[in-house]
């Protein structure tokens, strides 16, 4: 037995609704190591860490900290007392307060705020690890990177010996990333253990001591960083088996170019580069897959095409027209369908009835009425969607929030394909659906392709890519790493491109 500070054994966590987030997960963290948790979105990384920090309670399995078994009440407060601290992706700092005031929050050692003592302690920590944070600075004055260091100080101030960083590099520029890991390295020399959650392979290989790969809620393998490479990690992350049958026939003739992106650049919500000179085209009768680990620019890609996000450079052509700067409304009117990633917050208005949701894209159309809406026509349209797509709903005036995920997606699909769109942008269209609904969505997309429509299918599931697409482009950190014919692509090549290796063009 080495000097393990955390041991998680056989952890299982099931969420209401039967979603298994973790199953049979073993994880050992040793003193003074940097341990990476690598996996795609939804692989169960965050759930596992939330169990360790006392936010969730595991349904099965055991947890040991410093060799002691955790029993009885174990919440965030107890986790902090055990020396476990987590730096979340969204910082939990009070912006108008100073650094030292933020330290005082949530610590209950004294009733009165004693700035002097706190300040000297912060300066001591800051000096020790070269954090360069002044205790008197107000949070809003600090850069994102500095705020992250304040979060680290906060954890150390509370006596953290095990520091969990949730996707710490997502908000940082490349220079800041290097600085962050230098700091973390220095901390491990003092016996502090670091766990960092990520889906970026090169970071893991450059900075971690050991790596645990999670996939679909299971801990697949723990490896030493120096004994592995990106190819092996990619295989472990995406899985190997690809025995799915292709759902699309090869007899559809290719039509004209419907969508063409040339060197498109765009920023994400945090103002960092999200799309880096993306170029591709899609023809009628073709499904182009966008593969890649989530968070590499997929969301932004779907948004620039549909007009929801500003393009900072480059050009987007729809058939023969430049739509780079067009409004969402104009692009909808061009008959571009969009199945968004976020069903509840974007695709549907939860507290409105199915009728209101059914006409979200066509309410400006004359058939829905003029200044006053034609209720009868709206009801008819909705009823037709419900009948055609076999949507299960008590009646069309029911709020959609009571519908199941599969039925919600069917409603979106019904609405988006109602007016025979020329181009369909589908973002993770089957995420979270049951097998029957997945099959239904795929069949509909295949039907549209057969009708000669162009489809852009964004997916993180290589099986889906293989089943559904003619060609596949791999997106990595906002760049297209390569575009290949799906049937000629090997799983290894795709895995490598997803890990950041340059591929070929097809």
């Amino acid at each position: 037995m080495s000097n393990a500070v955390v041991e998680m054994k056989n952890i299982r966590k099931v969420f209401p609704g039967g979603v298994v987030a973790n199953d049979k997960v073993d994880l050992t963290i040793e003193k003074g190591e940097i341990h990476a948790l690598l996996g795609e979105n939804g692989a169960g990384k965050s759930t596992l860490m939330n169990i360790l920090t006392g936010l969730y309670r595991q349904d099965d399995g055991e947890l040991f900290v410093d060799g002691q078994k955790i029993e009885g009440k174990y919440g965030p407060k107890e986790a902090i007392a055990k020396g476990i601290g987590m730096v979340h992706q969204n910082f939990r700092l009070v912006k108008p307060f100073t650094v030292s005031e933020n330290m005082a929050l949530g610590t209950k050692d004294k009733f009165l705020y004693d700035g002097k003592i706190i300040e000297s302690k912060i300066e001591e920590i800051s000096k020790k690890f070269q954090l360069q944070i002044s205790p008197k600075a107000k949070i809003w004055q600090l850069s994102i990177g500095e705020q992250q260091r304040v979060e680290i100080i906060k954890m150390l101030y509370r006596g953290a010996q095990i520091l969990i960083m949730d996707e710490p590099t997502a908000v940082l520029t490349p220079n800041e990333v290097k600085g962050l890991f230098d700091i973390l390295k220095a901390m491990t020399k003092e016996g502090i253990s670091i766990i960092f959650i990520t889906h970026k392979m090169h970071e893991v290989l450059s900075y971690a001591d050991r790596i645990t790969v999670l996939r679909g809620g299971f801990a697949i393998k723990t490896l030493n960083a120096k004994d592995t490479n990106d190819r092996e990690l990619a295989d472990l992350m995406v899985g190997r088996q690809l025995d799915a049958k292709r759902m699309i026939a090869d007899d559809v003739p290719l039509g004209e170019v419907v969508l063409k992106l040339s060197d498109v650049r765009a920023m994400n919500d945090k103002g960092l580069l999200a799309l880096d000179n993306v170029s591709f085209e899609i023809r009628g009768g073709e499904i182009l897959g966008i593969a890649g680990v989530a968070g590499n620019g997929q969301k932004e890609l779907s948004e620039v095409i549909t007009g929801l996000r500003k393009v900072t450079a480059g050009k987007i052509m729809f058939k023969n027209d430049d739509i780079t700067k067009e409004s969402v409304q104009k692009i909808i009117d061009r008959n571009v369908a969009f199945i968004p990633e976020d069903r509840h917050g974007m695709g549907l208005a939860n507290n409105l009835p199915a009728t209101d949701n059914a006409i979200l894209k066509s309410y400006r159309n004359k058939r829905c009425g003029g200044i006053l809406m034609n209720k009868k026509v709206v009801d008819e349209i909705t009823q037709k969607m419900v009948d055609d797509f076999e949507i299960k709903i008590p009646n069309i005036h029911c709020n959609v929030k009571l519908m199941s995920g599969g039925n919600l997606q069917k409603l979106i699909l019904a609405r988006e394909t109602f007016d025979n769109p020329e181009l369909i942008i589908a973002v993770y269209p089957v995420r979270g659906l049951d097998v029957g609904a997945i099959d239904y969505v795929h069949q509909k997309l295949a039907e549209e392709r057969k009708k000669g429509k162009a489809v852009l299918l964004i997916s993180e599931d290589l099986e889906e890519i293989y089943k559904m697409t003619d060609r596949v482009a791999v997106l990595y950190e906002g760049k297209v790493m390569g575009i290949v014919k799906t049937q000629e692509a090997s799983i290894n090549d795709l895995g490598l491109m997803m890990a950041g290796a340059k591929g070929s063009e097809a």
Partner: protein
Amino acid sequence: MIKVEKRLETPKYLLILTPIVSVLVALMFSAILLLVTGEDAARAMNTIFGGSLINWQEVLVNSVTLMILSIGVAVAFKMVVWNIGAAGQMMIGMICAAGVALFAPIALRDSIFLIPIMAVAAVIGGGLWALISGGAKAIWNVNEVITSLLLNYVALYILQFLVFGPWKGVTSSGFPQTDPFPAAAKIPAIFETGRLHYGLFVALAIIIIFYFLLNKSRWGYEIRVIGEGRNVARYGGMSLSKNIIIAMFISGGLAGLAGAIHVSALEGRLSPHMNTDIGYTAIIVVWLSRLHPLVIGIVSVFMGALLFAETNLPAAGIPSEIAKLLQGSILFFVIAGDFFSRYKVKYVKE
């Protein structure tokens, strides 16, 4: 252990029952407070509610203003734009209406068109005033709560400047007020006795028009979707800034109209002592009505009675603060009662 669970959907009967029970609890709470402080609770309640029945015209005079103001506030609130500036927009409406009445060309002074022109001026004035906050919100995302609230004070000072200064009447014998408006500028009373005026029908018409606009029109559809969330509205191709500007203009325009009707029907001149606090009462009405236009009509009558009680109570030798106490506790209990329609409280054995 007591557990609180979020309800997926609030049953219809709870939507009606909780506000009624909340109002009853508020009445009881106020009565107990009165008893503890040694007031005659029964007599106070009788003065408030009995007095309102006898003086129903005065109650409805308050309600007319409340109805128009509240519909305006509700239009903004429906889109999650928090227009707190109804009081100021109402004052600007009063100023615009008074300006037309006082300085209209001779030909217009006896014309039946004078009142409509006053109304239009008030709508435009109130609407543009609200657009100061609305535009700042739409273009720079400036918090409209702060701007619309602070503009109330600016409007008040403009009003005071005018009546103390340039608009001070020749016939006002030194009082800070304008000359009286010409006779054609007065909205007539409905009955021979009493102050209830034809503005009532304007208010009822506005309620009905907005009920249809919000529920049946394309614009109402956009407002519903935007109220659900900015992302889904943007996804549907709606322009948020355009809609914020339209909603804010209508919201302020209606407040301006309420101000014009108030000065025209009741005051007949501009003075610094206009009852513009009613602009804040309208926010309470809207909140109690859950933004529903028809419910706003009913709640406006109820609140109109409580406002009337504020002036009626002192006449009966009872402090007018009791009416304020009642208003406050009703708002408090209705908002607290809202908790029970959104959450289930369960007793669970551990």
